[in-house]
């Protein structure tokens, strides 16, 4: 397969297409989304669906649709919506439980094994279906689509945008995202005024989706310090799915709740050993590494304690007030604070605590609501199932306590 060539300016841009080593989201015919690792010169396996050579995808732009045939990919043009003619058909004469499909499962399996294309199998099923002609056109369309989803080997790659990654994770494990749905997440990023060049503090126990959002908006320009409850920097699994280049993730640095305390002296192994005591190159290398870690920690602490940050974003399993107590002193005047929680009580109690404190202007509580519609021609309606909650937000502005007089 010829690879997709990128121009020089595109290589520099932040969307270079699919690259070797990327985690790629793919949408299968039934609508479910999987994440697969695309590593050059390997075979990509989508469990219970199919396998293909990774090189087929490397260098391709995101969003294209492919059909798998013999581990090779062929481009499949995306489908557009079809108008459906209204007919007089109704389901008046169609009853449940009637024997309508003489084609057995075994026969279908045999056809599939012999390499008959999915579209031909569906055609045969329709021809043999006893009641197909009685169905309404809408019902026929639904039937065809259902069958296609079942047999088709067509998938599309999904660009790892914040929206798509959040949607994928939310559908996969809402609890691990702490109900941080994309509408709530985007509101947090806007309310906290996250912009390229800004400096932010964040606490993310939501698998890193909040950190992913901030890094995406910074685009490699600015600073993000996260505070975590673990000894070493947290994993933030959502970040992996974003396939960020290092230029984007380099602005992120983490402290933990102990090292984020001003009067705590972190216990670090000595790195300043007189040169005459250094015995080997290995030891020297180790000491240099140790010194780099120590310096980074000290510099990060200094930067935090120097304050004047532009915003604080919290999606944590810890008491949000305890976080605000510790971190809000490092916010500049007029900076924004946004807290998310899956639970209304947590946010309500937080608001009640904040509103009596003069350093927080107008703590405001809100809940986000999101509804998706089916927009097929002639069949437009809200989806039957919708996400029940995207969590609750409390937002406030940091003020200086002293009132200025003239």
């Amino acid at each position, binding site marked *: *397969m*010829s690879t997709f060539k990128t121009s020089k300016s595109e290589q520099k*841009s932040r969307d270079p297409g699919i690259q070797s080593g990327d985690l790629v989201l793919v949408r299968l015919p039934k609508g479910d989304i999987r994440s697969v690792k695309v590593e050059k010169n390997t075979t990509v396996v989508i469990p219970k669906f199919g396998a293909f050579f990774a090189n087929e995808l490397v260098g391709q732009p995101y*969003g*294209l649709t492919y059909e798998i*045939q013999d581990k090779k990919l*062929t*481009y*499949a*043009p*995306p*489908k*557009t*919506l*079809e108008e459906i003619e209204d007919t007089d058909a109704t389901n008046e004469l169609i009853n449940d439980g009637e024997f309508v499909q003489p084609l057995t499962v075994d026969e279908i399996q045999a056809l599939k094994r012999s390499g008959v*294309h999915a*579209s031909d199998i569906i055609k045969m099923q329709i021809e043999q279906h006893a009641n197909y002609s009685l169905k309404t056109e809408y019902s026929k369309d639904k039937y*065809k689509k259902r069958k296609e989803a079942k047999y*088709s*080997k067509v998938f599309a790659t999904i*660009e790892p*945008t914040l929206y798509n990654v*959040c949607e994928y994770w939310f559908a996969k494990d809402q609890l691990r995202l702490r109900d941080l749905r*994309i509408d709530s*997440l985007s*509101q947090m*990023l*806007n309310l906290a*005024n996250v*912009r*390229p060049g800004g400096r932010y503090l964040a606490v993310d126990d939501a698998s890193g989706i909040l950190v992913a959002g901030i890094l*995406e*908006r910074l*685009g490699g*320009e600015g600073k993000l310090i996260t505070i975590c409850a673990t000894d070493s920097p947290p994993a933030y699994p959502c970040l992996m799915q974003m396939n960020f280049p290092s230029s984007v993730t380099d602005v992120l640095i983490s402290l933990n709740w102990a090292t984020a305390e001003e009067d705590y002296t972190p216990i670090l192994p000595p790195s300043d050993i007189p040169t005459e005591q250094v015995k080997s190159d290995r030891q020297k290398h180790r000491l240099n590494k140790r010194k780099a870690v120590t310096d980074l920690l000290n510099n990060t602490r200094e930067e935090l304690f120097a304050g004047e940050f532009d915003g604080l974003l919290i999606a944590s399993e810890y008491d949000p007030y305890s976080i605000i107590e510790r971190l809000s002193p490092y916010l*500049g*005047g*007029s*900076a*924004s604070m946004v807290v998310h929680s899956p639970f209304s009580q947590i946010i*309500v109690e937080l*608001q*009640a605590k904040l*509103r009596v404190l*003069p350093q927080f*202007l107008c703590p405001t*509580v*809100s809940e*986000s609501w*999101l509804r*998706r*519609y089916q*927009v097929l*021609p002639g069949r*437009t309606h809200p989806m039957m199932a919708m996400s029940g909650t995207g969590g609750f937000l409390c937002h406030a*502005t*940091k003020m*200086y306590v002293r009132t200025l*007089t*003239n």
Partner: protein
Amino acid sequence: MWSSARTVAEGDTIIVWLTRDQLQPLVVTPGKDLNTKFGNFKHADLVGVPYGSKVASRGASGRGFIHVLRPTPELWTLALPHRTQILYLADIAFITAALNVRRGSRVVEAGTGSASFSHSIARTIGRAGRLFSFEFHEARFLKAREEFRRHGLLNGMVRLQHRNVCKDGFGVSGVDAVFLDLPAPWEAVGYAKEAMRKDRIARICCFSPCIEQVLRTVSALNDAGFTEITMHETLLRPIEVFQTPKLPSVGEAAAELKRAEVRREEKRQRQIAANRRAVEEAREGKEAKEREGKREEGGKRKVVDDEEGEGEEEPEHKRARVDVPSTPGVASTASSTRPRTTTSAPQKINVAKALAEVRGHTSYLTFASLVPVPAGYAGRTEAGSSSNGGSGGGDTPVVKVENAT
């Protein structure tokens, strides 16, 4: 865009926060005064004040104060002068995410309107990005231009044009995202496609309040070869938090009812005793009267028997209710059903509910993607059919994607 300095300088645009519903944008111009219901201020006094300060008003009457805030697009949305219906946080944030607008994005918007959306997008794309904003209404265009100039957006970040995009198109190409807030977005869909990049996914959002507009837009997008057409509605439910005394238990009510019954019975017994006494006195009195030959007593202090005593129950009942305060913790000594708290302040709890009247609908958000098409496919998408390309063009390998024109 706006000042990122720590303190306010002459010429800065600031947001004066008066109340939750009253935010006022202000260009700090020494020599001018600011008069609010919270007192009078001199612009000159605001120069040098750190952003995020509370500033007290001037003079003897000066017990009022204002909050001096640094503008953000979100504050601007709440404070801006309305020239049109505007977009609010929930829609702006969702559209930004769904269109994948981020640092460096090239975005088209039409029309500019009151520029609530524009400011938010400009903030998000930053200096590396570019917003092409189109307004067909001349007066609104001129006002927006003045505003963008004052906010430092016209030096490269935002390009504003007075142009009817439904007639004349956008005159740009290779943009990542298009946002159409127009009465008839379907008229601009073809031009939007021309403006969008073809080498990567580009995205469009059409913002329409009516479902009929959505249907026309969807079919125009579909005909133009857009895919992944979805439609969303998003709202932000504002929630108010209240403090209220801890709700009393019905055990309290039961105890009070029992106490009232006891008092009523005691009263009845007292009345019986009183009646007996009255009868006694009456008899004695009669004898005395007979002796003294004076006027008869009776009309008012009527002799009642046991059952008629009930007639006085109502005032008694009312008095009993007043005796016992409903506030828990200050219950009368007779209360024994609830453990009494020793603190004098009544226990408070925090409760929350949605505002009584909220924004119920803004607009439907119709999204679609323009996906790159390999050169061999001549830019035409196949109408949806059961044979999804596998048999039709199955031999065509994945080839070089057309470059943006």
